């Protein structure tokens, strides 16, 4: 017998039932649309904000990847230095995914001016290359300048360090440290500029000096402490990192990505994501209970109708399927509109990022230099949000649907 197999029966009935109580359906849709839209927008802001924070942090100083002698990052000592081999340098300069690289000497030092002495982190760079990797040269305060290729003893220092020392552009400071060979390294250096990165750690300790001079002052003999690599896309970090690792001896050289270089940032992103997931969860529950409530109301109102349907030979499974279709239809419409709303709002905020510039000082307390938070919509966000709502709608409607299908017709027909 062919019977009972008209697959269009349940969806057709369900579709009409969805629109029978327009007011209720529209209210439910509103819950889903707003909930879905908010989840998408919040996730887009989180994704965009985190990416911005990574980009900013990477651009200010670390780069996407750094190459050191093994142990340097942990000990932060000039003693961990290496001479990059030609094979590695050739790869770094030819790889399509790499935008630029810069070689650095890093040393802890004491800076003195008059009676003031402060600890500092000296980072010696070749300004021509450094400018392609980091953006400190864009953060120079009025009245000063960044290093240029002809600078011998010029340095730029963070504005907080300058204030602590009581120095201004043009002043000469003395630096004392230890050289690579263990000797005392001392030099007199002239401030040519001050920078304000917004990152408190850098602003109160970083000193940038010419690499050529540092080679002599610290007796480096051709050794360097790090190579910072800037990529064209942050997404390539893991693959480039592993390609570099293939060309270097893991016993001697460490290759670190931005996540390894800035574990606090990773930690912050994880915590922030956890907060976002909790909010997502609450919104999803609101949406799910909205759907549950609607389906339950509509099932309760139609008990008699289900009784008649079951009495005249409708299969319980057909009743259940019909109700599940109702829930899925409402959810699909809600999701479609919610995707539109969420994407539209996110799109607006991708062009007009949320601006925290007015709170710059408060943000610094948190060690954050990022002030503009753009939204970024990802396919994953849209898919995961849609699927979650759809699955929850299905699960939450299953029990009312199951109950309706298990009704005893004679009792249901007596029901008012």
């Amino acid at each position, binding site marked *: 017998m062919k*019977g009972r197999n008209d697959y269009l*029966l349940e969806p057709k*009935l369900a579709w009409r039932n969805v629109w*029978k109580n327009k007011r209720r359906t529209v209210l439910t849709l509103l819950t889903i649309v707003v909930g879905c839209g908010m989840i998408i927008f919040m996730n887009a802001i989180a994704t965009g904000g985190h990416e911005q924070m990574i980009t900013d942090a990477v651009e200010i100083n670390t780069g996407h990847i750094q190459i050191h002698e093994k142990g340097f990052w942990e000990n932060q000592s000039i003693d961990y230095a290496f001479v990059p081999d030609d094979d590695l340098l050739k790869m770094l300069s030819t790889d399509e995914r790499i935008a630029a690289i810069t070689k650095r000497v890093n040393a802890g030092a004491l800076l003195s001016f008059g009676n003031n002495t402060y600890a500092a982190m000296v980072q010696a760079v070749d300004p021509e290359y450094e400018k392609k990797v980091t953006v400190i040269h864009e953060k120079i305060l009025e009245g000063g300048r960044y290093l240029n290729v002809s600078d011998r003893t010029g340095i730029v220092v963070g504005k907080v360090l300058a204030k602590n020392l009581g120095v201004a552009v043009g002043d000469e400071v003395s630096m004392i440290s230890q050289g690579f060979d263990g000797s005392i390294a001392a030099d007199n250096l002239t401030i040519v500029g001050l920078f304000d990165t917004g990152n408190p750690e850098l602003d109160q300790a970083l000193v940038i000096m010419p690499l050529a001079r540092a080679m002599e002052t610290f007796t480096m003999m051709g050794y360097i402490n790090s190579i910072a690599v800037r990529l064209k896309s942050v997404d390539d970090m893991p693959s480039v990192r592993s390609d570099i690792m293939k060309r270097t001896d893991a016993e001697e050289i460490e290759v670190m990505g931005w996540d390894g270089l800035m574990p606090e940032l990773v930690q912050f992103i994880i915590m922030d994501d956890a907060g976002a997931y909790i909010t997502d969860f609450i919104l999803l529950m609101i949406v799910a209970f909205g759907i549950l409530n609607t389906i339950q109301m509509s099932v309760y109102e139609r008990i008699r109708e289900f009784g008649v349907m079951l*009495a*005249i*030979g409708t299969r319980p499974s057909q009743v259940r399927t019909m109700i599940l279709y109702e829930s899925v239809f409402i959810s699909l419409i809600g999701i479609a509109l919610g995707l539109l709303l969420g994407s539209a709002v996110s799109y607006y905020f991708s062009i007009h990022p949320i601006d925290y510039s007015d709170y710059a000082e408060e943000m610094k307390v948190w060690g954050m230099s990022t002030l503009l938070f753009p939204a970024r919509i990802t396919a994953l966000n849209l898919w995961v949000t849609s699927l979650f709502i759809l699955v929850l709608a299905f699960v939450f409607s299953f029990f009312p649907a199951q109950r309706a299908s298990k009704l005893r*017709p*004679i009792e249901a027909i007596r029901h008012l």
Partner: protein
Amino acid sequence: MSIIAIKALVKDYDVNGIAVNAVRGIDMTIDKGEFTAIAGPSGSGKTTLLNIVGGLDYPTSGSVVVGDRDLSGMSSSELSDMRLNNIGFIFQAYNLIPVLSALENVEYILLLQGVSKKERQDRAREILIEVGLEKEISRLPKDMSGGQQQRVAVARAIVSEPEIILADEPTANLDQKTGANLLDLMHELNRKKNITFLFSTHDSMVMERAERLIQLSDGMIASDEKRR
């Protein structure tokens, strides 16, 4: 040849541990083509009897044979199939699926039976014309009078030409004249298609129109007379 054979039928309901004897030993047979009314005061067991014959409820004891099927051995899905294919139901009121038009409500049974779309629509339209609802074919239940809705229910019950049509107080929510017209329609279909009708009522106007009248009292048959 009998189409319904009931032997020693007993139905007790358990209400908070107290047995309510709704049907207390009924024997009866109904032949194909009969137009029979079950009468009796409220609480006499009419609905219980019809529900058991229709496979909507199980007897406490006794046997019910509908056509050649002994209902006592049937599973709930076999009973569901029997209700779909062999029995037409007309309830007191709110028989119809609210979101379906008159035509679609009648088609619904055929759809469940897997009849093709064209045949479904032709047969449903034809039967609606027969019950006098040509103009109401595409109306929703809420846009029809109570009498018209009951006519759609009659059309739905009869469209698949079942062996029996069971109607529990089909006129109870209608006024006298509309009720009489509905019963005349049922009687006409009964004669024309030779379909067995078994309906309950406590309305004397309806009883008058029955060919056979079975009176129930306290769950037992008080009288059983052929009128014509």
